[in-house]
C-alpha cells in the first residue's frame, strides 16, 4: 500500500466498521438486550451508512476549531461588557429560560446517547451515537459557560439545574426528555434525532439565535450556531435512522409512523416556549413566530414527509392542528407566563404599544381580535396599581404538562379539553395529540409528575406559596420573579445606562 491519504469512504470504513468484532462466546441477544423489545426488526446492520462519514480523528479536529472560535467570542463579549450592549434587559429573560429549560436537556441528551449507543448491534450507529453524546456534553458546557457571564449581572441564573428538576414550567421540557430516555433505543432516536433536533432545535437555534444576534447578544448567538452545526449532523442521523428502520422491515413502518406522530407533537408542544421567546422576549424584532414556523416547521416538514412517502409514511394528522395554532401559540404562551409571573424565575411584562402594533401587523387575523383586549385590560389593572397575577394554580395537561391554555381552533375563545378514563381514574389533556399519546401507553403517563398536583400532595416544600417558590424552587422572591417593571434587573440596567449618559456629559464638559 502506498502512503497516500485515505479517501473519506475508506477512512470511514476502516475507522468505523473495522472497529467491530465477532461475538464468539456470548449470544447477540444477550449483548444487545434492548434491541428487539420495541418490535423493530433489523435484518442487516451493515446497510447503515453515516452520510457525513465522520471519523473520530476528523471529529476532534473540527470540534476543536469550533471551540476555539466560540471561546474567542465569549472572551470578547465578557471583556467588552457585552451584557450592557444587548437591546434591552428584558431580553435577558429569554436567556434565563434557555439556561433553566434547554441547557439541562443537552445534558439529558448526552446521557441518552451514551446509553443508546451501547444498545445498537450496528457499529456505525454506535459510533454516531458516541459522537452525538460528546456533542451534547459540549453543548451543555458551552451554554453554561456563556450564560455564566450573565449570572454576574442579572438575577435568576443562579440555580438552573436545581430549578430544572422542580419548577412547574420546567417540567415541560424535562418530562419531554424523561419520556424519550425511558423509551427504548429506537424510539429514543426518533424522539431526539427527529423531534428534538429536526423540529425543536432548528426553530430554537436558527431564527431565535438570529434574533439574539439582532439584539446584541453575541455570546448566545455564537453558542447557538456552534451547537446547531452539530445539530445539523444530528438531524441527518435522525433522518438516517428513520430511513434505515423503514428499509429494514415492513413491520417497522407502523411503529415508526406512530413514533413520528407522537414525537412531532411532543416536540411541537415544547416549542410553545420558543414561540413566546420569539414574539415577546426579543425587543428588536426579526421575524415572527408564525414566519419562523412556516419556514422551519411547515416547509421543512412537508419536504421531509414527501421524501418519506415512498416508505408509506404520512404527515401526522396533528400537523394540521399545529399549523392552525401558529397564529395563537405565542400569545397563549405569554398569557400563561403573565398570569403566573409571580411563580416564574424570570420576569414578564406587558408588550408596549409599539410592540402590540407589530404583533397586530404580524397576526392580522388574531391579535386585535383575541389578544390585544386582554393586554389592555391588564394594563388598566397595572395602571391602577394592581398588576394582575392569577391567584389559583392552573390545570395541567397530563402528557405535555403545560397549563391548559390552548384553545379550540374552531372557537379560539374556548379552552381545548380532552379527557380519558383509565383504570378507574380521569386523565385530562390539552389536545388530541396529547390524549392519543396517553391512550396508547397509559401505564407510562399515569406516572406524570404534575407540578400542581405535587404541590397539593404536599411534596414541594409546604402549603404556603412562599414555601414552594422560595424554599423548594429556590426562586429569590421579589428579585427573580414578578414583573420586569420594578425589578432589580431593571434598576441595574437603568443605572448602567444612566452612568453612561453621565460619563458622556462629563466628556462634553471637559
Amino acid at each position, binding site marked *: 500500500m502506498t502512503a497516500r491519504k485515505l479517501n473519506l469512504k475508506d477512512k470511514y470504513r476502516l475507522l468505523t466498521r473495522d472497529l467491530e468484532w465477532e461475538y464468539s462466546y456470548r449470544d447477540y441477544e444477550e449483548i444487545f*438486550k*434492548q434491541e428487539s*423489545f*420495541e*418490535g423493530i426488526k433489523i435484518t442487516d446492520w451493515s446497510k447503515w451508512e453515516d452520510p457525513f462519514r465522520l471519523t473520530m480523528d476528523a471529529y476532534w479536529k473540527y470540534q476543536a476549531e469550533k471551540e476555539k472560535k466560540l471561546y474567542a467570542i465569549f472572551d470578547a463579549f465578557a471583556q467588552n461588557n457585552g451584557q450592557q450592549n444587548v437591546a434591552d434587559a428584558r431580553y435577558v429573560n429569554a436567556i434565563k429560560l434557555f439556561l433553566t429549560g434547554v441547557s439541562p436537556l443537552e445534558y439529558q441528551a448526552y446521557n441518552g446517547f451514551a446509553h443508546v449507543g451501547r444498545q445498537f448491534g450496528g457499529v456505525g450507529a454506535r459510533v454516531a451515537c458516541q459522537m452525538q453524546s460528546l456533542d451534547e456534553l459540549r453543548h451543555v458546557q458551552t451554554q453554561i459557560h456563556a450564560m455564566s457571564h450573565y449570572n454576574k449581572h442579572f438575577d435568576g441564573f443562579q440555580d438552573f439545574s436545581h430549578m430544572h428538576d422542580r419548577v412547574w414550567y420546567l417540567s415541560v421540557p424535562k418530562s419531554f426528555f424523561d419520556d424519550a430516555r425511558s423509551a*427504548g433505543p429506537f*424510539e429514543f432516536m426518533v424522539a431526539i434525532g427527529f423531534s428534538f433536533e429536526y423540529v425543536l432545535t432548528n426553530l430554537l437555534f436558527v431564527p431565535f439565535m438570529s434574533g439574539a444576534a439582532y439584539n446584541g447578544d453575541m455570546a448566545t448567538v455564537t453558542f447557538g450556531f456552534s451547537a446547531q452545526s452539530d445539530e445539523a449532523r444530528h438531524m441527518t442521523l435522525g433522518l438516517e435512522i428513520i430511513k434505515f428502520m423503514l428499509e429494514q422491515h415492513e413491520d417497522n413502518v407502523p411503529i415508526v409512523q406512530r413514533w413520528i406522530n407522537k414525537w412531532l407533537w411532543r416536540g411541537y408542544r415544547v416549542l410553545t416556549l420558543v414561540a413566546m421567546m420569539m414574539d415577546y422576549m426579543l425587543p428588536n424584532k426579526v421575524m415572527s413566530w408564525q414566519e419562523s414556523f412556516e419556514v422551519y416547521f411547515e416547509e421543512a416538514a412537508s419536504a421531509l414527509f414527501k421524501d418519506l412517502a415512498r416508505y408509506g409514511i404520512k404527515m401526522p394528522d396533528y400537523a394540521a392542528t399545529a399549523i392552525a395554532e401558529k397564529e395563537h401559540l405565542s400569545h*397563549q404562551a405569554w*398569557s*400563561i407566563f403573565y*398570569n*403566573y409571573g409571580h411563580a416564574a424565575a424570570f420576569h414578564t411584562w406587558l408588550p408596549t404599544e409599539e410592540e402590540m402594533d407589530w404583533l397586530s401587523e404580524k397576526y392580522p387575523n388574531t391579535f386585535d*381580535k*383575541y*389578544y390585544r*383586549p*386582554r393586554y*389592555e*385590560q*391588564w394594563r388598566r*389593572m397595572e395602571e391602577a396599581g394592581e398588576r*394582575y397575577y*392569577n*391567584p*389559583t*394554580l*392552573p*390545570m*395541567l395537561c397530563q402528557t405535555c404538562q403545560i*397549563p*391548559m*391554555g390552548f*384553545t379550540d381552533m374552531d372557537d*379560539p*375563545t*374556548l*379552552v381545548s*379539553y380532552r*379527557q380519558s378514563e383509565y*383504570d378507574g*381514574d*380521569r*386523565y*385530562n389533556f390539552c389536545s388530541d395529540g396529547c390524549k392519543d399519546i396517553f391512550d*396508547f*401507553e*397509559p*401505564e*407510562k*403517563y*399515569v*406516572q*406524570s409528575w*404534575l407540578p*400542581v*398536583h*405535587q404541590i*397539593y*400532595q*404536599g411534596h414541594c416544600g409546604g402549603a404556603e406559596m412562599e414555601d414552594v417558590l422560595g424554599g423548594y424552587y429556590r426562586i429569590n422572591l421579589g428579585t427573580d420573579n414578578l414583573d420586569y417593571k420594578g425589578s432589580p434587573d431593571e434598576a441595574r440596567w437603568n443605572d448602567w445606562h444612566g452612568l453612561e449618559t453621565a460619563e458622556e456629559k462629563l466628556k462634553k464638559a471637559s
Partner: protein
Amino acid sequence: MPVAAIVDNYRGERLDALANFHGNQILYLGWDHHLMFCSPVALPVPPDMPFGKVIGELMPGAFSLHPEFGQIDWSGVVWHLNGEPFTPDMDKGLAEQGIDHKSIVRFATPGLDGIGGSGS
C-alpha cells in the same frame, strides 16, 4: 399494549391517585370565554363539599379579578361536567352528584363574553 417495556406486565405508579391528596380530591374549574385566566384552575377540595360552596367561596377566589365577575347571574349559568351538560345541586356534596376526582366543571355566562366581547 399499555406500555412498551423491557419487563412483562409493567405497571406504573398512579402518581395522582385520590388517596395521595390527604382526603381531598382535585376539582378543575373553567370559565368559558374568559381567557384572561389563561387556563382552567385546579383546586384540592373535600369530596363532600356542597356545590354551593364552589360558587360562594371557590369561584370568587379564582375569578373575581375579572371585571365581569360581579355581573354574573348565577341562575342563568350554563354548566358542563366533564364535557356533558349538567345541573348542579347546590346543597349536595360534589362526589354525591358525580363530580369525582379530577373532574372538570365548566361554566358559561351568556351575555358576558370577556373583555369587550373578545373571549378574554
